[in-house]
């Protein structure tokens, strides 16, 4: 029933998009973007899941398996776990840049409301 995870990721992404589209508070827009990032993490980790599999670690295999059988056996997809690592780092970087831009906008326009930013025009 990994499909439930996929649908949860789709729902999370849509909630994040809804927040980005409808909120006028820019901090909450950044929070919506973070939510969309979190949806991609959930999606990729779910996509890596295999039914009845073990972790892709060759150090001390579970009982009844050897390192060699594990290489050809039933393990979770390590490539997608690597994608998730990459996505986390990029998510942190992007959020930091967004937040610093938001603080600068707030200092310049004295508001966090994106509609009022458009009205003031510096």
């Amino acid at each position, binding site marked *: 029933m990994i499909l439930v995870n996929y649908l949860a990721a*789709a*729902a999370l992404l*849509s909630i994040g998009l809804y927040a980005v589209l409808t909120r006028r508070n820019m901090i909450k827009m950044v929070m919506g973007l973070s939510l969309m990032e979190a949806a991609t993490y959930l999606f990729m980790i779910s996509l890596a*899941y295999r039914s009845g599999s073990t972790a892709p*670690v060759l150090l001390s295999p579970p009982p009844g398996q050897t*390192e060699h059988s594990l290489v050809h056996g039933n*393990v979770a997809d*390590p490539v997608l776990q690597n994608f998730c690592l990459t996505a986390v780092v990029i998510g942190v*970087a992007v959020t*930091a840049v967004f937040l610093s831009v938001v603080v600068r906008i707030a200092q310049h326009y004295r508001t966090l409301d994106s509609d009022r930013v458009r009205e003031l025009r510096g």
Partner: protein
Amino acid sequence: MSPAEPGPRAEAREHEPTHRRWVGAALAAGLAVALGAAMAGLPSDHAALPAVARYAMNVALPRWGLTEPVNEIVYGTRGFDTFGETFLLLAAVVSVILITRSKEPRRGYFGESAAGARERRRTDPAAPADASEQAARAAERREQDEPGPGDRAGPATPDAVPLGTPAPETAEAMTVVTRTAIRMALPVLAVAGLYLAAWGYSPGGGFPGGAVLTGVLLLVYAAFGRRRVARVIRPGLLEGIELGGATAIIVTELLGLILRGSFSANWLPLAAPGTILSGGIAQLFSASELIEVGTGLAITIFALIGMGHDWTPDERDSGREGGS
């Protein structure tokens, strides 16, 4: 409480400005439906591993001596991807430095006193201050590292403040309980961060290790105040270390191109799997990544904390002060 009665919750809802709720809801629902339809066609959790994943499982031990295929992918098979990601992180750090840069040249991250000087002068300086206000102002000046002529010098460190000292409390550091707890936890956390990078399942936890070390720096800052960390956490030092880590990554990857004929190829001898030197350049890459991520996150966070009070004057204010 009846729904019509304005309570604190209703007030909070009233102040939440939104923008075209229904258009947003329709678009988000459309995205959800499209994604849901697409995801119904994804391979199930019984599908065979993709070829690239099986390849990584196959080469992890023989070619890299790594017992953890995820690590092998990060620093080996998809090393070029990690290389690009590192420099995306560096680009983000540079952007944050550029955006948060204050108007004055910056020696430390904390320039509040200089930036707020104009506003402080505006409060009536001629008004006589009573004893408690004088004490509070002296404490504030002490926190801002600019003791006035009549102030007695504050204690050099928060630890030198005797217990039970009456107010004004300084906001510089946390209480003695928190400071002691953090003193206990710090070495454990620092060692745990380095362990993630050096050992773990197999060497190569540079990314999480760097994040843990940034957490250590933040704990020190929160517990002991900025004066205690200002000597270490300053842009000149952190940015130098960050670029040192980035240079180490470039050199590590380029040496693969020069010595082995392909970018990010392993050019170091392999140690036995599961030891600290196994993995060849993966360990070198991961250690550089530890430096890069640790200092990069610290620079970003402290640049955001130290953004200062560079407020553009209000229109009312600018009229009074002749504009800016």
